[in-house]
């Protein structure tokens, strides 16, 4: 009788444990921010609302919060980093203009976070025409992250952009520089050497209409 009771209790415990685990998983899928403590969660949700109101993509903000949860970072630190992402997106929008795509804004925000200035971003955006800035900005951020000095990196990307370089050119430049850095070349020299290999693709893109230009007042302040 006692053995039967013990087995029954074990079965019940097993069921409760499994059901509890599945329940927690379901809640996480339905409400991914649920692991955050309520006050930090409220802060993240406020930032998401602010991003929506400002016309910013909310994906990078929510993704950063989820990344923090996944990496088991404290709620306080998650909110700090998420707020930083929000500010970067706002500055990127101000520099790249309201017609910048979510991908361009995300890439622009990343570039700002590695030290590229709003003025440099606006300079790049002012000659974008109908071309997409995402790949040049991704490559620029990567180069600075890998140790290429900021000014030469920014100038080289801008010159290539003006010479009509395509996405494949920028990605080829990135691969070459990355390979050279791994094999021991100074990052700045690697960039100079590899940039020379990229041929000119033709005239620079046309200047966008005046209404699409980024907010100059914001750029003057930076």
């Amino acid at each position, binding site marked *: 009788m006692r053995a039967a009771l013990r087995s029954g209790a074990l079965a019940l415990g097993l*069921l409760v444990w499994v059901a509890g685990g599945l329940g927690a998983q379901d809640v996480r899928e339905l409400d*991914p921010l649920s692991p955050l403590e309520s006050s930090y969660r409220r802060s993240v949700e406020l930032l998401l609302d602010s991003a929506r109101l400002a016309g910013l993509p909310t994906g990078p903000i929510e993704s950063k919060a989820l990344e923090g949860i996944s990496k088991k970072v404290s709620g306080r630190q998650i909110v700090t980093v998420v707020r930083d992402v929000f500010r970067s997106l706002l500055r990127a929008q101000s520099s790249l203009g309201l017609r910048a795509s979510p*991908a361009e804004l995300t890439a622009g925000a990343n570039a700002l976070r590695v030290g590229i200035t709003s003025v440099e971003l606006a300079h790049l955006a002012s000659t974008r025409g109908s071309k997409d800035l995402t790949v040049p900005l991704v490559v620029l951020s990567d180069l600075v992250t890998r140790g290429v000095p900021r000014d030469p990196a920014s100038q080289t990307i801008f010159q290539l952009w003006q010479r009509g370089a395509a996405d494949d050119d920028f990605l080829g430049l990135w691969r070459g520089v990355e390979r050279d850095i791994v094999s021991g070349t100074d990052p700045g020299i690697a960039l100079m050497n590899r940039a020379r290999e990229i041929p000119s693709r033709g005239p620079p893109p046309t200047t966008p209409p005046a209404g699409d230009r980024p907010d100059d007042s914001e750029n003057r302040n930076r």
Partner: protein
Amino acid sequence: MTDQFDSLDPELRQIVAEARRPVAMGEGARVRLMQAIRSAPAPRRARLEWVLRPRQIALPPWATVALAAGLVGIGVIGGTLVTDRDGPSAEQPSAVVAGTPQLPDSLVPRTIKFVLVAPAAARVSVVGDFNGWNTSATPMQTRGANGMWTVYVPLHPGLHTYSFVVDGQFVNDPTAPLAPDDGFGSRNSIMFVKGSSL
């Protein structure tokens, strides 16, 4: 029985005697009665009567545990099959794209192959903005002993931030551009997925 009858109240005995008196029936009455019974539809038996009939089943404790575990297992496997995003269907990019021809390019997912060489790893997965950074959502598979881990993931056009998780450690993709410091002490990788018209 007779004693019981005799002990009844006289009035009651009279009523019972009346009730017992045989009723005179006509010659064909019995035949008509039987014909009427034959022509009347037989009452239908409930088809699920046997299934629905309540019954008690006595199981030993070990069988109860096994039954409970089995039911939970069926539920988990069923749920996994329904919600699995990394199954073999992901290896058919044309099906993914052809299934949504009316959508704009920015909404049509492209199937991306993630590859990582990690010969010493026991478990590898990919996490990123496409799976909510869920470390168990997109496990990678390895075949043979070359240590190459792969997985196919449908991604919408746009910029994606991701990382590999090798035995619990976040590792950036050595073949992709780096994102800036993630703010949490490590670096992620960046992937730009173009729409078909980009």
